[in-house]
């Protein structure tokens, strides 16, 4: 897919500076988190593997910026970015990665299942496409409760070939459920290029089969993503039914830390590196006079310091004991367990 094909989005100029800086901070926070966690993994002090999202910051931040706090998102095994964008703290995420009881899932979920229901994020479902029927179900609940909430469902290009995608999207379509289906198309399902698993690689076009609206968006342009998500969210809340957004982006790291990523050709990597979402948005901020290089660098430095402090705290955070083995398994029915 030619990254130049979608062209530059014409941004709405009515955003205030605070909001724009918030978008930038969120993206940098995700990037520094992922890079920092990568080294924790290399040092061997943090257990387990990780699936990272460097390069895809604008999709998570853009969509979540268009949602309300009471809206819910479902996520995947590549959920660190979604979590930080939705409002989970760096500390609760790091604690979770270190397996501590103060983690967002009390140390029982780990990297692939981060989430926090209190912040509107269902813990990540690592089964490819697994979150799609869940999001449809949540949409049904919201509609029946008339709560005005919507569910945004993140999934990748790989999930589109799963039966669950068809079932979930179709159900949301026929029952007009308030679900925002967000496909983060980063061109590869693990190591398999999209062109090898579908003849028509335009995923947004599939929306027409379900009678819903589909839109392809430059996933590395955070404002374009935000605007598309806002419009789609408004349509969902108005009862028009679900919307399918296809965000075109690129993963600048391996599928997991065990992936050498040799399948990404060098020229493709470089082309997408030139479209890095953070670098591009920094240019937008400078052009609009919202911030200069020094201010942006100061933001980054502050975020890095906060991350490092959080790492220190996470290393000392309490670990689960044998007693924790049987908690969080059943819903408390009032009789103790």
């Amino acid at each position, binding site marked *: 897919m030619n990254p130049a094909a979608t062209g530059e989005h014409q941004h709405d100029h009515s955003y205030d500076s605070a909001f724009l800086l918030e978008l930038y901070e969120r993206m940098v926070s995700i990037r520094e988190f992922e890079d920092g966690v990568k080294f924790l993994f*290399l040092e*061997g002090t943090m257990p387990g593997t990780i699936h990272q999202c460097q390069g895809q910051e604008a999709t998570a931040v853009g969509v979540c910026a268009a949602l309300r706090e009471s809206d819910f998102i479902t996520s995947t095994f590549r959920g660190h970015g979604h979590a930080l964008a939705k409002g989970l703290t760096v500390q609760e995420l790091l604690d979770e990665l270190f*397996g501590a009881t103060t983690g967002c899932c009390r140390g029982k979920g780990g990297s692939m299942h981060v989430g926090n229901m209190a912040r509107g994020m269902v813990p990540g479902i690592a089964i490819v496409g697994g979150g799609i029927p869940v999001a449809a179900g949540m949409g049904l609940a919201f509609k029946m409760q008339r709560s005005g909430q919507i569910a945004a469902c993140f999934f990748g290009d790989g999930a589109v070939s799963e039966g669950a995608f068809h079932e979930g999207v179709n159900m949301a379509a026929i029952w007009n459920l308030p679900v925002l289906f967000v496909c983060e198309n980063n061109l590869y399902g693990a190591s398999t290029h999209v062109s090898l698993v579908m003849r028509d690689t335009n995923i947004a076009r599939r929306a027409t089969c379900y009678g819903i609206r589909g839109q392809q968006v430059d996933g590395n342009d955070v404002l374009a993503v935000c605007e598309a998500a806002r419009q789609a969210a408004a349509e969902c809340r108005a009862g028009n039914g679900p919307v399918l957004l296809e965000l075109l982006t690129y993963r600048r790291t391996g599928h997991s830390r065990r992936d050498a990523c040799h399948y990404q050709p060098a020229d493709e990597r470089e082309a997408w590196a030139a479209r890095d979402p953070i670098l591009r948005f920094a240019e937008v901020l400078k052009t609009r006079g919202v911030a200069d290089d020094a201010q942006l660098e100061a933001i980054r430095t502050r975020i890095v*310091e906060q991350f*490092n402090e959080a790492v220190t705290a996470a290393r000392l955070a309490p670990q689960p004991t044998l007693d924790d083995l049987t908690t969080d398994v059943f819903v408390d029915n009032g009789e103790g367990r």
Partner: protein
Amino acid sequence: MRFEMKMPDLATTESEIRIVQWRIEPGEQVARGQALVEVETDKATMDVESAVGGVLRETRCDPGTSVSVGDVIAVLEVEAAVAGTASEKTPRQELSTKAPAAAAVEASPPAARAPGGMFARNRAATDGRAAPDDACRLSVAQRTSARRLQQSKQTIPHFYLQTSADASGIVTRRAAAAPAPPAWDAFFVLALARAIGRFPRFACRWEGEQLVPASTDAIGVAVDHEGDLFVLPVEAAASKTVDQISDEIRQGLNLLGGGDSDVRRIRPALMTVTNLGVCDVESFIPIINPPETAILGVGKVLPAAVVRDGQMVVEHRCRLTLSVDHRVASGRAAGEFLGRIVRELEALGGEAA
């Protein structure tokens, strides 16, 4: 400040990770995030990036050897303040132009961890705390060997043929060459090499349901050095004399004893000879060294009573066991091959030195 770089968790299964080549030499500066060593996992070949910036002081494993996740692979010298200056070398993709201030990395995790936590096994291995007192730590070489042999026994359909050879000619020949007779193993190596020359099927190996010619003609000599198993390869053995092969084996043993790291590298052989005569073992059934097709096990040369022309005579005999991969050869083919080995061995007894 010393920092011990451990092999990160790159393998998808419990398998070992093989060192391919070091990207940095001891003494060189390396930046945080810069490729330190190329490794091969069960999935792919990839680079391991350095977790810290500093100077590489020591590498702890050689190319060709395998390590486990958590093993210390290198020691680096880190200056707490130097982290920022390493920035020029970080790769273009990294937006972090400065390494974070807290690069003063702790060499071991803090003590405040509940005992029996989920990763107690990893932590015990990585922070120097002793494993249970009665456990015996195995070296990397021993663990590698254990895994390969288990895999061999579980995946190769072994079958075994046993026979004995008349070793009296060789005994005489060695006595004549005293006080510096050629090593016993040299005779077995040469006999095996000559036999393979007549049985090209045994110069093949099973690969993906096909027989593929082996890439080497070396005959391996199994050596136990201080509890670690090594195979010394003798290349082009069929074209050498017994004395030449004997010198080569002895030289290899000296290098092993001297701690030479080059001789310890795993190098492939076509087929291996393993000799337990020194332990007074009369015969034994060896396990094939993957990806080889067969292995020849040799017992102690002993005087034995045999019947010749109706008469009972005493002569030195040597019991041989050939373990064979049944996917490559059947009983008949293997029997004829073993018979050839015996004839070559007995012929060596009759040759002049």
